[in-house]
């Protein structure tokens, strides 16, 4: 590669655009990174941006969630998995690969005479799911394991979100990365706080390396 022959841009191109103001400073490849605009505008939308604070109960349009946020939600991502950049890695329809395209699971609440169904595909994080469950069963409060936050207790009873996975084990919601949860969750049960002593968070082998 002859890096000595720097390329010169044409003064104007066929369309007659004026390039005085847009003259490139040409340097040898591999030199220090001097960008055309001095790097002033870089960075704000590159790769991993700031997190977005999703407060519980916030009514965002879930249809646009994957698309309006070009920023990532590092805090909402389950522990051990990285903050996700929109559209990266470029896996086509990853949500569908290895999963059903419309993931309805039944939600039962201890003490409630009815069941509800939620479509897990509608959510991208645990926060969104729990917010939605809270709406659905609005007379209860749900203990949020991720943030260790306790919501206002309306009638003094706390419910712990649990789910049954593919192997038939009952797990605490929030223990595994979101995608893994969606893939393995068969149904959800909001248990009364007193019943959850028997459950222990299971740490899948690949996460055991974290401190």
């Amino acid at each position: 590669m002859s890096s000595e022959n720097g390329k010169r841009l044409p003064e104007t191109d066929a369309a007659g655009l004026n390039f005085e103001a847009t003259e490139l400073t040409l340097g040898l490849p591999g030199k220090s990174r001097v960008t055309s605009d001095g790097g002033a505008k870089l960075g704000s939308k590159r790769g991993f941006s700031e997190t977005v604070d999703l407060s519980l109960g916030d009514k965002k349009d879930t249809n646009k969630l994957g698309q309006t946020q070009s920023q990532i939600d590092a805090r909402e991502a389950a522990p051990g998995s990285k903050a996700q950049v929109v559209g990266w890695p470029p896996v086509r329809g990853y949500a569908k690969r290895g999963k059903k395209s419309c993931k309805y699971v039944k939600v039962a609440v201890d003490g409630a005479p009815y069941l509800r169904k939620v479509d897990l595909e509608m959510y991208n994080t645990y926060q969104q799911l729990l917010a939605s469950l809270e709406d659905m069963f609005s007379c209860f409060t749900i203990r949020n394991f991720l943030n260790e936050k306790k919501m206002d207790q309306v009638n003094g009873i706390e419910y712990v979100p649990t789910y049954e996975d593919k192997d038939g084990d009952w797990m605490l919601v929030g223990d595994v990365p979101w995608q893994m949860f969606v893939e393995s969750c068969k149904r959800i049960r909001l248990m009364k706080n007193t019943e959850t002593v028997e459950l222990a968070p299971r740490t899948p082998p690949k996460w055991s390396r974290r401190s």
Partner: protein
Amino acid sequence: MQKKRAYSFPDEVLEHVFSFIQSGKDRNAVSMVCKSWYEIERWCRRKVFIGNCYAVSPKMVIKRFPEVRSIELKGKPHFADFNLVPDGWGGYVLPWIVEMAGAYPWLEEIRLKRMVVTDESLELIAKSFKNFKVLVLFSCEGFSTDGLAAIAAGCKNLRELDLRESEVDDLSGHWLTHFPETCTSLVSLNISCLGSDEVSFSALERLVGRCPNLRSLRLNRAVSLDKIANILCLAPQLVDFGTGNYTTELQPDVLSNLTAAFSSCKELKSLSGFWDVVPAYLPALYPVCSRLTSLNLSYATIHSPEIIKLVSHCPSLQRLLVLDYIEDSGLEALASSCKDLQELRVFPSDPFGVEPNVSLTEKGLVSVSLGCPKLQSVLYFCRQMTNAALVTIAQNCPNFTRFRLCIIEPKTADYLTREPLDVGFGAIVEHCKDLRRLSLSGLLTDRVFEYIGTYAKKLEMLSVAFAGDSDLGLHHVLSGCESLRKLEIRDCPFGDKAILANAAKLETMRSLWMSSCTVSFGACKLLGQKMHRLNVEVIDETEPPCSRPESCPVDKLYVYRSISGPRSDMPPFVWTMDEEGTILH
């Protein structure tokens, strides 16, 4: 002396000669010889391919080619596959169907990719084209099983219904019962994308049973393994088969029935499906493995030992799609068993995980490049790479036509030398003179683009992410890649200068996509004003670009050539500049 008219054949003779010319490119060349050839050719063109549905209007197509029988249209840009194009952006097929319903009553084939297809469109197709035969909806969305029912009921001579990778609103499995008992013409049925709801299985069985020409059948995940043996026995002439889920309760007869069923399929060359695989049932495939040329295991969560066992039974394999569970060891086995391999795609089983969950590295790809001399097309997701490996791969495989490498973590350097991967990709473009498609990843400077601009003369499509240092990088590509048709870029420091300096180049390409780069709104306006045959679309969902200073970078930019001017179906978050500099919305 009397002047003799050159080529004084009667029109019918010319038309007959032209009928042997099928390719669109050749037909275009024919039409440019002289006016009379243009006229004759346009009346006998039967097949039209439109790579960007907004490049031309339906009326224009119909006016020039009045007797079309087969049309193919593509809508959204490729990055729509990765959620970078907001919902509602466009790509609606209905206006095309409406125009063609009137102009092409004898239309037989519609093939669409990344378009929005409504039930209304499907109903209109079923009503308007009496001899309709082929419907392919590749990565489309917007329709439900109601629309499919209309197609099934209305298209008496339907040969092909292929819904590959489309998003279908699965309202009911009963749409299949709408195929009349008199329908025996099906050759290809692909419903693999349908959701978890059961398709009416008895209707499916009856349909398969009465279509003796059925060659390709791809089922959806809801069909369980125990049902497959029945289907195969009804259609032993199948050449291409997609299973449903490959699991069922362990029962004594299932394996033997399944093995017998596969044995009866003497023509079977291609297999796919394999959701939820129970490895104990894989040996049922052994009777067909020696003839298999194409195997898609990309949904199969089986691990390296099982994959190796299966693949070592398939010496004729030309195409393999698999998850990275295959690991380096499996790829080594592949390299020694499958000497005819032409295409390999390795997908990540855990793309969002932080740590690697499998032992798949650059070594696997090197093994395959060494062992498979016919390898032409690669899509490879991994977590580490070296320049040395890429150079070796390039030297082993000078025949690459498609090379797409995705190192999962952006800006990953050569893990041995800590250098950018410029030299490695440079070797790819230098050695692979027929390379038509390239996707880059890892740590890359402007240098890699210099290599690409210098060597990649046949390159038609380039995908770039998190790469480059300056506008010079983009300039190298736009000024050097003579065959470039599609360029898609995200998160790179490329801005105004390269775009404006190469504005004329953009008219020789189908399209340019740039998102999260540094192209200013002012430059977009200028481009739109000066280049009348380009549509310059700015996409921004947060706020209108004109509410900010013109020097601010736009969020997303999509530029494409068009002879029908700005489109009229833009949603609120898309702006385009017309000739007078007005911002249309």
